[in-house]
């Protein structure tokens, strides 16, 4: 297993249906954003439901709100949108070994959200081994059935890119778990699973291929 670390000045993950006026950011990227990043790295559409597993951890230094001027498509008209964003963002991806080549030389730009949220590959670590134990989870989404408390929201797992416009392929309700800040939050978000002892955080490996 490899662990890829991405870093970006800003990141923003729109709630799927809140796009008028104010766009709050999700605390962590939805799976479909991970699909986008993997696809950009490889240079072709990647489907999470075809990967043996994928895990990710996201954290940032804080949040802010940006005012964004947009040019309405197909019209001579502009609008001002308020967009919430994460500042100083880090994303760790846990992937099968073959992904090393794609992140060593990503085919397209890697983005943590919108086109302005440009990311760089800061590190690719090989031979990552995860311990199996009670571990605090966070900075990721987990299935509701796991029984960990957090914000519940419906999210697209992956899109089908064989058509224009793209289409959702799989949608599920998730627990959106922010990266735990306090000892108390860590304790509440602890469950049996995998643990990255180097980062001190649990890793939930999604296996949508089943």
């Amino acid at each position, binding site marked *: 297993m490899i662990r890829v670390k991405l870093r970006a000045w800003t990141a923003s993950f729109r709630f799927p249906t809140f796009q008028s*006026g104010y766009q709050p950011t999700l605390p962590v990227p939805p799976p479909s954003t991970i699909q986008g990043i993997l696809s950009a790295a490889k240079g072709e559409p990647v489907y999470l439901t075809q990967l043996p597993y994928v895990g990710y951890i996201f954290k940032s230094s804080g949040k802010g709100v940006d005012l964004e001027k947009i040019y309405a*498509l197909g019209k001579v008209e502009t609008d001002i949108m308020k967009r919430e964003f994460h500042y100083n963002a880090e994303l760790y991806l846990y992937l099968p070994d073959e992904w090393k080549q794609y992140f060593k030389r990503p085919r397209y730009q890697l983005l943590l959200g919108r086109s302005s949220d440009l990311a760089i590959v800061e590190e690719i670590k090989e031979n990552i081994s995860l311990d199996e134990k009670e571990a605090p989870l966070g900075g990721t989404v987990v299935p509701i059935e796991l029984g960990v408390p957090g914000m519940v929201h419906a999210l697209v797992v992956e899109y089908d890119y064989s058509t224009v416009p793209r*289409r959702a392929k799989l949608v599920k309700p998730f627990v959106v778990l922010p990266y735990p800040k306090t000892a108390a939050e860590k304790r509440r978000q602890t469950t049996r699973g995998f643990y990255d002892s180097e980062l001190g955080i649990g890793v939930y490996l999604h*296996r949508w291929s089943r």
Partner: protein
Amino acid sequence: MRTIRKEKRLDKFLTKSEEQKTQSKDTDTTTTSSLFTWTGHPFTDAGLVALLLLSGKKKPEELSKEDIENVVNFASRLYARKEWSSGYIHAMMLPNSGILMANPSMAKKRTPEAIKKNLLSLLNEKEDPRAPICEICGRRHARIKPVYRSDFPLVGTGGVPNYFPSGKDGANICSHCLFLAQMMPLVAYRLSRVLIIHAYPYQLMLEFHKEAIEDIKKSELASTARDFKRPENFLFEKLTEIGTKFEIGKLENASITLYYFVNNNQSQEMEVIYIPNPVLRFVAFAARVDRAGWKKIVSMGWNKGCAKRLSKKPEEIPKSCSNDVYSKLLSGGSILPYFIDFQNRKVNASWRLLSFYCSEVLGLDREALEFIKGIADRIVETVEKLPDNKLSRRIRELERAEKLYQFESFFIRVEKDRQELGIPEALMSFDDFARILTSYGEDLNVSWKTVKNLLLFRIYEKLHDRLMKASAEEVEAEENEEEFEEGGEE
């Protein structure tokens, strides 16, 4: 500890553990047979709450066709009225709605029958297998007609298609999810914006929105949440009430997110307020074991200026003013100082509530808390033997310790007191001393100042009466005689 390196073993483990987990938890999100399911989206889940509450049912699969028709009748009758149509639905939630006929141009044709027809036709809308799947429930095909913010709050308009994939066609939402969104006005709370309390487990969401339905039944108007002006104040108030009913165990994995929004032609705003699980459980615990204490804590947090302005109408304060206790709880700050009334040298709540707060919200471990309590009890055992004026002065040294060295010298003075009073054994060992001064500094919430507050809490709890008596006598006598200088430049 088992280390996993090979993918095969990893797969095996995952399959096994996930199956076990799915079996052991309730599967209320995985039922696919019923007409409606919980989706995880706050707006459609709210619509489902309306259906359930008005039908007296608890689970989506219990809903019958008849139930749904009854609710549609009820909703259509209300929605046809001006107070609902232009005054609420068009003004705050679904501007120009065609389905609910809130579009001002439809005023003449608007009747309960016409709205009912629109709503039921959504449920009977044929699915087109060539359409993409719904991005909310993932179960059905999206409707062919594009969905914009006049039918589903905040999804954007055709006017600015920038955020729809490839810039066209609106959101991919199925007719059933769209139907549920049309039921949302029934359970929503109408403050200066619209409030939806999205809770998991979903049973909790029913609890939180029951009041809205009760209000509608009484007044035939949308609930104004008892005229609260601030969504978080209303939430905490309700949580305190609901908390007394719920056992802490039931809230073990509960979460609440407030969606506070407005969606009309002038503006679209959205605030997402997440209530962390430790906070939920703490408030519920407070409501059950020490309601009076919790009330006192909250009462110290009201914004001073606002509370002063409303001093002639004190019942308005909890509805309109911001509260530091609430905002600290929501932002992860410490509310420990609010457990203590420094001015009157007394405690606002029981040690039991304090202890729950420290361990469950601040994350201080129980063993550390017991250790600090033990030290506090030994301090009490010492200083209670001092004459009133000296006792008061000694505790004042602790109260005024703003720097670590001042905190240190307090212990040294108490140690001297012990020797002078001939109390056997030291107040604490060197190791304890080091621990209390330095061990709790890692987390911003748990520094030596936390320890200081905990010590004072225990001392006030035990010695309040004597301290108050002494400080009354002391006021004139010792005005000019401070033991050490206060503060610094910091």
